[in-house]
């Protein structure tokens, strides 16, 4: 088990390094001269040179990359080009908000998705299954910006149950009515896609487990249906779901970008979009790296959890 974790950690570090290279390359090499971009086309050659010297742009890319990575790891994420703010403070603050949103969404969709998936699998090919399966396919097909707009139209504008804008103040406390009610609609928006995704995955893994010999054995041992499902099926069927939930974090982040800008929620997704629209390189780099780190960590966690829950890996 330990060596398993160590190996996964090793892979994670490798992945992160490669990902950072990719991000660095995408943001630094492709768009051309940063100095021109920042100072404008009419800047004098002298000014450009000064800027490059100041920003260390005249060094080789390898050195620049090393330098960037080194300072990034040390927590120096640079200064935002468009706002002149300290990128780290900015990103971490937004990250906290996104985490709140993600948490609310998580609490909404993970249990519900699992329950729906299991129910659909148990009642396979019944109308319940069809409704859940087709419903989940339909929700997978609904982009967040459509669901979000529909939710706003119905729950904020028509029914006026929840605010349409989720602009929470930077220091908003989580357990606060004001904050929580602003999280409901965006969380719901993100949840629908992930909910559908989890339900589908849970269904298919449960269906697979239901077809296993040991389930047949369990039934023929005379166990009641609930005991078979609860004790013999779920234990194995939910194992892949652990991974799915982690991979779903990728969806969640994709959803955050759209949803946050839709609801005006000050999270990391909207910050990223802001950075991209302004070609704010340090901001893009830092935001992207943070998201990638979270994403890979979630995967690592899922791997470890999976390994821990799965005796076939735990006792090798």
């Amino acid at each position, binding site marked *: 088990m330990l060596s398993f974790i160590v190996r996964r950690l090793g892979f994670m570090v490798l992945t992160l390094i490669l990902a950072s290279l990719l991000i660095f390359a995408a943001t630094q090499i492709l768009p051309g001269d940063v100095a021109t*971009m*920042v*100072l*404008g*086309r009419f800047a004098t050659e002298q000014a450009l040179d000064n800027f490059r010297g100041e920003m260390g742009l005249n060094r080789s890319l390898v050195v620049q990359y090393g330098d960037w990575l080194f300072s990034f790891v040390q927590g120096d994420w640079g200064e*935002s080009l*468009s*706002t*002149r*703010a300290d990128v780290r403070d*900015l990103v971490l*603050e*937004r990250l906290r908000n996104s985490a709140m949103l993600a948490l609310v969404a998580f609490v909404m969709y993970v249990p519900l998705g699992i329950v729906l998936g299991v129910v659909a699998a148990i009642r396979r*090919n*019944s*109308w319940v299954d*069809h*409704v859940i399966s*087709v*419903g989940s396919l*339909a929700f997978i097909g609904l982009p967040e910006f*459509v669901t979000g707009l*529909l939710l*706003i*139209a*119905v729950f*904020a*504008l*028509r029914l*006026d149950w929840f*605010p*349409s*804008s989720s*602009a929470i*103040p*930077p220091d908003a406390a989580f357990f606060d009515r004001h904050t929580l009610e602003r999280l409901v609609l965006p969380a719901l928006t993100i949840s629908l896609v992930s909910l559908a995704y989890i339900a589908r995955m849970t269904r298919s893994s449960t269906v697979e487990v239901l077809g296993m010999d040991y389930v047949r054995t369990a039934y023929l041992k005379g166990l009641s249906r609930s005991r078979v499902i609860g004790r013999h099926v779920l234990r194995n069927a939910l194992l892949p779901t652990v991974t799915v939930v982690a991979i779903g974090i990728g969806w969640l982040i994709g959803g955050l970008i759209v949803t946050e*800008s*839709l*609801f*005006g929620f*000050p999270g990391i997704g*909207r*910050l990223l979009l*802001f950075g991209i*629209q*302004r*070609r704010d390189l340090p901001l893009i780099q830092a935001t992207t790296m943070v998201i990638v780190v979270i994403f890979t960590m979630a995967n690592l966690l899922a791997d470890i959890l999976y390994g821990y829950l799965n005796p076939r890996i735990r006792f090798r």
Partner: protein
Amino acid sequence: MGMNFNRRRRRLSTVVVLGGVLVVLLSLLVLGCGGDEDDTAATDETTEVTSAEGDTESTEGDMAAVERGGVVSIGAQPATNLDPHFSTSIADIMLNHQRFDWLVELDQENQIQPGIAESWESNEDGTVWTFTLREGVTFNDGSPLTAEDVAYSFDRLRDPDVGSPVVSLYEGVSEISALDDTTVEFTLSSSNPEFPAFTADYHSAIVNSEVEDLTAPGGGAGSGPFVLDSYSPEDRASLVAAESYWKEGEDGEPLPYLEGLEFIFSPDLGGQVEALRGGELDFVGGLTTELVDTVEADEALQLLKVTSNMHYVLHMRADGDNPAADENVREALKLGTDHQQLVDAVRPGLAEVGNGFTPVGPSYGDYYLEQPPQRDVETAQQLLADAGYGDGLEITLTAQQALDVPAIATVWAEQMAEIGVTVNIETVPVDVYYGDGEQSWLEVPFGITEWGARAVPVNYFQLAYAPNGDYNESHWESQEMADLTQQISNELDRDKRVDLYHQAQQLMIEEAPIIVPYFEAGLAGAAAELNGVELATDWARTIFTNAYMAAAQ
């Protein structure tokens, strides 16, 4: 038996499933359309009501008792620069107007009123202007605002090394001196009868000479009614009421009535109006036409409106190897434009066509040269052919994703198609358009820029149409225009100025590489409880000094 039963059940479940799909999709449709029917009905009704009483601008109509306290939330695009001398975006302008004071202020008729300066006078030929400052005005940290600070502010504005966008506006100023604590004297190199109005430019805030970083929260950067409390880039800015602002309210206490302002940034106007309707915001400016309908339909909201000289400029870069460097091309594009259609499509009923190609609108009275533009497709095509584009011309129009710009671009592109010009529209975020990059407004070959209201029309000429203007987005190099601009600035005689203005407009109509689709009214949506807000003619300059929240009647 059993077999039949099972067969049927399978078919049944199929029907159920198909039904399920349909229900999901139909519910989508119904959610959208169902709403439409109810709402259109509702809209019609309320529009009637609002417009009935709305003709007299309702803000000051029936004044409720003033109540102190409360925070007003304002929706805006993200701010880009909190240094007032470098304001570019609407959010910058709006935010900085709450933080700073000006020597003179503009009223709703575009006339100058005393600000920090109590009074002003000039020598006979209008080359020396002396401003007398109000006593006892302090910056928000309590330090006194003196003539030194005024001199410092304008020196900073006109210093090319600092690089404020209005350097050219104050080119004529040769010296600024503080005669004593409350007297400041501007010496001009040539006469300028309208110089006080020049000090009203939205950049020309009076800043504290002791404060280095004008963008930092708190402190005494400015003397305005509100103090920047916290700033969270791309997210929000909080302002709190100044402790001892020099203006007094009805209750004899210092203004403002409000405890503070909250600017909430979001790039999407539609979302802002949704938030306004949901009560999350109290004020959203710069409404587009369709959002006007939405605001009017909502009883919890009010529509604020002001006539102004706000307009859009579709510029055609006239230098280098840009297509519009060819006079024929410019003329063709101008002739191909159907102004009235643009109004009807984009701002029906909320804008009027001026003379088509100048920034001088009807609101300037006799300065305005009335000469409606005429569309002439055939001549336009002929001109294009003369320019060698008989087979068609393809241009790229950069449009910021804000206000009516995408709509204007889309409609104009259609009009151009009729004269054989293919317009590729490239939309960019506002801050990219007003940023420093290649897609910025001063760089792109074709772009659409919104212009706020100015005290006097010559300001536009100086900034954007004289060859050395900092905002010469069309890169138009006309010596004649430069001369006319100079003459207008120097001419003391009003009749002669009118004549010169007309000459300049005539020149622009014929030659300037710009198209001005229309002049629009300033519009803002606000919560019905918000009182005391007087929209500035350039609505972005609206100051919330007198604003207060009171339960709607």
